[in-house]
């Protein structure tokens, strides 16, 4: 019977070539967009680069300072002084790492100018994140404490500055300082913004110590614990500290501090539903809005397809009447139409997946997103498959139900 359903479905598709094309076009385009978004989302929420231990880290990259009346507010990244006086008092994290945030700089090497990102970090940076070293090593606690002029670079920098030669042992000039490269790591995907840079050097090599006096600056902190469950407690401890024991610069007139140690999801939702005077990250709202948008995005073409399917009913009503007259039950017809709909969506879905892989591949190849890498991923594939089924059901079941319940007499007359 199933084979018959499939053969009939195939014949219907061939019969209504334009309809089939429109349907396939709609489904594949919708799914392609969703697949591209979910692949990029997947690489953000489930990093494959140095942030692959994302469950073990939480990032503090935003601080809001305000006075009691909330009429004087400053927000931005953290200053070194604030970190030293407050963050370093936290007991829960196993490790705390801080870095300057990456900034662009031009490097002149052998007469060639190259624009690269530099990040100044501590030695914990290499312990809290999970970098893959191609050659060499990270700088040690000793080298960091002594302010040694050592640097780690990524593959891209090695290639740009030294071609096919190994970068390890080579000299690198940053401003007036000369660093010795001691390690080369794989390129960091742009979505992994905590780790992202082309060159990493110890911040103890800074020419001045002015930064040590700043409450606000351009610093990020990473809290690490080998047990992800405890990290939630670290955040609670941090928020508690901000509420009750925060040390702020008296001269600033600021009395309240709002911040948090965020997961990737929380960071994103806080960026979206920005609320200066709250510790809440609104991630439930974020998830609801995202789910709502995805549903809406799928619902619109689905409604379109329901319309197309229902109008197609008119053309097929005589066939429905004949099939019923010769013994097809409502259930058998329902199965027939659902299978038709699912096969069509499946074909559109496979097309959509292929298209999305092509698009992602061209995004990778174009260099539009630096160091983007979107490999075929079983989880994304399963999400895609799920989306296809939802899509197929949304757009197929109602018309199928309506078609199959048509009275044979009405159907034979060509109406419904």
């Amino acid at each position, binding site marked *: *019977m199933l084979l*018959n359903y499939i053969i009939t479905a195939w*014949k219907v598709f*061939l*019969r209504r070539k334009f309809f089939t094309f429109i349907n396939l076009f709609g489904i594949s385009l919708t799914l392609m967009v969703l697949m591209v978004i979910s692949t990029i989302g997947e690489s953000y929420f489930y990093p494959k680069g140095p942030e692959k231990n994302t469950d073990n880290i939480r990032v503090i990259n935003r601080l809001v300072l305000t006075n009691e009346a909330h009429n004087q507010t400053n927000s931005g990244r953290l200053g070194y002084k604030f970190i030293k006086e407050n963050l370093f008092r936290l007991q829960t994290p196993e490790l705390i790492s801080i870095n300057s945030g990456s900034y662009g700089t031009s490097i002149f090497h052998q007469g060639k100018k190259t624009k690269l990102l530099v990040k100044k970090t501590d030695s914990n940076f290499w312990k809290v994140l999970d970098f893959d070293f191609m050659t060499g090593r990270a700088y040690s606690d000793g080298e960091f404490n002594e302010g040694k002029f050592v640097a780690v670079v990524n593959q891209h920098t090695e290639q740009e500055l030294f071609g096919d030669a190994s970068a390890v042992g080579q000299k690198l000039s940053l401003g007036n300082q000369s660093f010795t490269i001691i390690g080369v790591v794989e390129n960091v995907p742009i979505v992994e913004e905590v780790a992202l840079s082309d060159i990493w050097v110890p911040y103890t090599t800074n020419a001045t110590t002015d930064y040590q006096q700043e409450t606000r600056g351009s610093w990020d902190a990473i809290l690490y614990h080998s047990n992800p469950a405890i990290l939630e407690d670290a955040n609670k401890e941090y928020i508690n500290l901000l509420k009750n024991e925060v040390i702020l610069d008296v001269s600033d007139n600021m009395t309240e501090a709002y911040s948090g140690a965020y997961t990737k999801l929380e960071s994103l939702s806080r960026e979206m539903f920005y609320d200066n005077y709250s510790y809440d990250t609104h991630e439930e709202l974020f998830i609801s809005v995202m789910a709502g948008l995805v549903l809406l995005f799928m619902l619109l073409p689905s409604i379109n397809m329901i319309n197309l399917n229902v109008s197609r009913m008119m053309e097929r009503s*005589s*066939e429905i*009447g*004949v*099939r*019923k*007259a*010769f*013994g*097809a*039950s*409502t*259930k*058998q017809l329902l199965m027939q139409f659902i299978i038709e709909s699912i096969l069509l969506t499946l074909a559109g879905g496979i097309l959509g997946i292929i298209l999305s892989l092509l698009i992602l591949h061209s995004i990778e190849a174009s260099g539009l997103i630096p160091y983007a890498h979107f490999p075929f991923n079983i989880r994304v594939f399963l999400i895609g498959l799920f989306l296809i089924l939802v899509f197929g059901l949304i757009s197929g079941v109602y018309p199928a139900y309506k078609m199959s319940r048509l*009275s*044979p*007499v009405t159907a*034979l007359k060509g109406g419904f």
Partner: protein
Amino acid sequence: MLTLKNISKSFQTERIETIALSNINLHIKKGEFVSVMGPSGCGKSTLLNIMGLLDHPSEGIVAVDDKAIDSYKDKHIARLRNEKIGFIFQSFHLIHDLRVIDNVELPLLYRKMSAKERKELATAALEKVGLKARIHHYPTQLSGGQQQRVAIARAIVGKPEILLADEPTGNLDSHMSDEIMKLLETLNQKDNATIVMVTHDEEMAKRTERTIRVFDGQLVC
């Protein structure tokens, strides 16, 4: 084999109720060739639809082989239609993108049967109506008379006990009508098929054993 007891059928529209059939009592015996006549809109087709279990009466009982079917579920009624009844329509109702053989096979799709068996039975039915040579054609490649013969092959392929024909010659010229009528007569006489045929044509009705006349939703003798 088919009995209608006190059958009434009315259609309710927004404002008015139209009575299509009123208090019909009818019994069709096995092997009979019955014609149903009456003016347009008198309820002939509604009567045929109720006999063919395509429509439900508003009141009364339809019995197939002395069993009342009013409590049967959709699945059971579908099976009865599949096994006991074959339909022939005025406008043939062939599915245009299926080949002749696939159209004829259609009732067998809803039975537990191998594809090979289906093909054999469909070929035999087409042979019976003289269209074996056309099995791979599509309906639109055939004349009206040939299309109606395909429809008859489809109606008889499952060896139903009763054939219900709703003006089977209504869309055909006199020569083709005669051809179809002869075919129905052969099926009735040789295969002992029970046939109920709605017609407007007095000449056709005369060729059947019994004529039922319907007027304003009622049987007139």
